């Protein structure tokens, strides 16, 4: 089963969320929010990593995942899986940050959590099933 189109679609969806949050960060505008905590999360110290917005890092990661879907082979599948798993683990850390130290939930972050989980599952499935030289 060719999973690359599904991974690409999920990466585009995740990239759209990350792009919006990156725009919100640099434009210093309030994100559209129904959970009430988006701006608090966006303006917390957890929204940056070494001075770089985590939303921008997420956008770059989704672009990288998208790039792996353009290439056949186990190496590209492995790279996609690593990116997906890194994304899931880091999103889990940020979810903890929202629930504990920040004390606010951002709907865009929750949406990203869902998308990155889908991406990770698909990328791992692709890595396990991608035709290779073995």
């Amino acid at each position: 089963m060719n999973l690359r189109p599904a991974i690409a679609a999920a990466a585009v969806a995740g990239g759209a969320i990350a792009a919006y949050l990156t725009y919100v960060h640099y434009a210093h505008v309030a994100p559209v929010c129904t959970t009430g905590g988006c701006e608090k999360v966006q303006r917390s110290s957890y929204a940056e990593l070494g001075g770089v917005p985590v939303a921008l890092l997420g956008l770059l990661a989704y672009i990288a995942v998208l790039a792996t879907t353009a290439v056949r082979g186990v190496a590209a599948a492995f790279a996609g899986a690593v990116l997906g798993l890194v994304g899931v683990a880091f999103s889990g850390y940020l979810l903890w940050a929202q629930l504990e130290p920040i004390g606010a939930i951002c709907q865009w972050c929750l949406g990203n959590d869902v998308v990155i989980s889908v991406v990770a599952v698909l990328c791992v499935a692709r890595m396990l099933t991608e035709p290779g030289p073995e």
Partner: protein
Amino acid sequence: MRRNRLLLLAAAVAAAVIVVVALIAVGAGKDSKHTVTGASPRSTHAQLFTGVPQRGATLGSPAAPATLTVFEDPQCPFCREWNENALASVIGDFVRPGKLKLAYRGVNIIGPNSEQGLRAIYAAAQQNKLWNVVEALYDRQGAENSGWITNRVIRAAAAAAGANGDAILAASWSPSVTAQLRAAAREASAIGLPGTPTFIVQRPLSKPQQLNAPLDASGFESALAAALQ
């Protein structure tokens, strides 16, 4: 083949764990530029506010035709960013010439430790040192809800701001400070405060308007100048 792929999966998981641990160690949620020590990293507060009238929560001439109300939380890193990057320019170009006065509104949006800082800030208003103490607390800002706003930090900030720390701590829980906190919270609620920092510009004979502006000096000043026209 199946065994090789499972080994590959294990390698991917291990790589992901290493990367994420490194990312967290690098600093998500940490503030590399600021510490919670008592020493002041800046000594410019005196120059920043010298010669600028300060009364209570207001900075600038009471006769200034326009008011910029600033809603802040002492734990908010973006508030600190604005204070560090743009406040000096705003004071120099708008407040000192008498075009604008600044009104501080401290609101607790981050956590209980913010209230301790806000009480100290409003207590400093009784010495007409509110803005100085706000700056001095930002110099010492730690991670949100890490409990960095302590009596020790407040005393150190007060000393750096040229204020009486013991008097600030004594007045922190006074009814007048509580009343100011409640008034700021009501004001924030009335405008549907989206977060901090939030800036409200009030020009003569005009309705207050929210100023959406970048937090750097040139970007903020451009937006402010446009709003004041």
